[in-house]
């Protein structure tokens, strides 16, 4: 009889604990990546690199005037 009672208590407790668990966990899934990752920047090609260098040189000249 004692064993049956203990069994009932354990089962009821387990059921309630699992229900509470569902209630707590449902709103926010765990282990989810929270941020967005964009495509990584690409390498500048030779033409683009030259264009930037010209602009930098032009600005340096302005700054040093």
């Amino acid at each position, binding site marked *: 009889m004692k064993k049956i009672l203990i069994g*009932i208590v354990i089962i009821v407790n387990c059921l309630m604990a699992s229900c509470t668990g569902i209630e707590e966990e449902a709103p926010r899934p765990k282990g989810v990546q929270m941020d967005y990752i964009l495509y990584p920047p*690409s390498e*500048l090609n030779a033409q*683009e690199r030259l264009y930037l260098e010209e*602009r930098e040189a032009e600005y340096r000249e302005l700054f040093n005037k």
Partner: protein
Amino acid sequence: MKKILISALIFCLLLSSCSEFLDLKPYGRTIPKTADEFSALLHKHLGDIDYGTDAVIVGNASNVTAYACYADNLDASLTEKDFRKVLPNYIGTRINSFQGLYRNLYSRIRDCNIIINRITEADKSTSKGQEVLATAYTMRAICYYSLIQHYCEPFEKGSSNDQLGVPLVESFDMEARPLRTGLQNVINFVIDDLKKAIDLNISKEEYRFTVDVSKAYLARMYFWAEDWTNAIAVSKEILSKHPLISGEAYVTMLTDRYNKKGNVLLRSYIFPGTSDLSYESVESQIKHRPASKDFVDLFVEKEADIRYELSFNSVRQNQKNPCARVRSAEFCLIIAESYAHLGGKDAESLEWLNKLRENRISPFVPYTMFNLPKVDPDYIIKKDAEDKNLTSLMYAIITERQKELYMEKDRFFELKRNGRPTFWVGANGLKYVMEKFLYTTPLPKSDIDIVNGLKQNKGY
């Protein structure tokens, strides 16, 4: 045996009461109820604007500078080496921060909803109740306007009902999980809120969002939604009450750090506070990213244009206070552009464009249809808001706006409204491309995961 049985039952009962406790909703005890409590709720947000700690509703110096970095007025490729990690190369560097902005905007909307839904009829008949209600309507409308600008694709006439809007939350309900409604629905909601605020006709400056501020946002909303006729009508009302100013008064209006002067209707930083240090820090940081040569070259009249020396110095370092403002010049430009879109109204459009220019340039030569500047084939914007190729008139209006509202959190949204041009910046040998989809920022990933059916924007 009986004792064991009773203790087991009591134990089970205790557990069930614990479960009940978890179901309790705490908000029932904390929601404000009176006009005074509602006023306190609003003043927290108004205080943030006044002290420059608000980066959500109007925007502070740090926020304005970030948006300047996302656009093309500054040359990100020329950023000094030590500041490349401080100043974002392009919007992609900070794309995830927009998840926080989304949540913050909805938290302001929640507070406004509490006021709008719960204010009593008795309070509505008092002046304080009306002030609180009008402020809540305007603040909610501004938040939705900002959500439209950030999280929705640019308005497209004819398909705005099918374009994705944002979830419309009209009342305070913690359990609700609304989905995105059509863009036109959200626009109608903003217009409706602003009209309700205007009807309440609040002029008390203490609440910041006076009837003129509500009208200003109504004009902005009509303009964004390409309702040119209404944008003109409301903008004219604003300008008749707050005319353009020029000369010393104009300089004082833009350089004054903490006073609402001239025709400024709303601005951040009314009182110096703890954020003052961050203001100074931002001002010094932005000097390490020069203005782009293309932008500087738009000032054809050079020093004869009062904005030239107000904007940058001889080495193209920023000189203008980074500050988000709502002021009359924007509405003059809204009228000029709206007339240009209407067709057959070029004379009216020129008239309003010249009104602005005569207050900024001395000596001033008015534009006619024959002396308008030719469209620069290298200009970053190629298409106007209606997806048409730029005319000389439209080019003149858009570039005038670029000069007038520099460092006022405008240019990024202008690029978005006018064709979302792609451009790239170089840093550390890498190429960062401002792709079209980046003009529309992402909804929080957690919301997409939790709310079934909530659609994310393209590209994320």
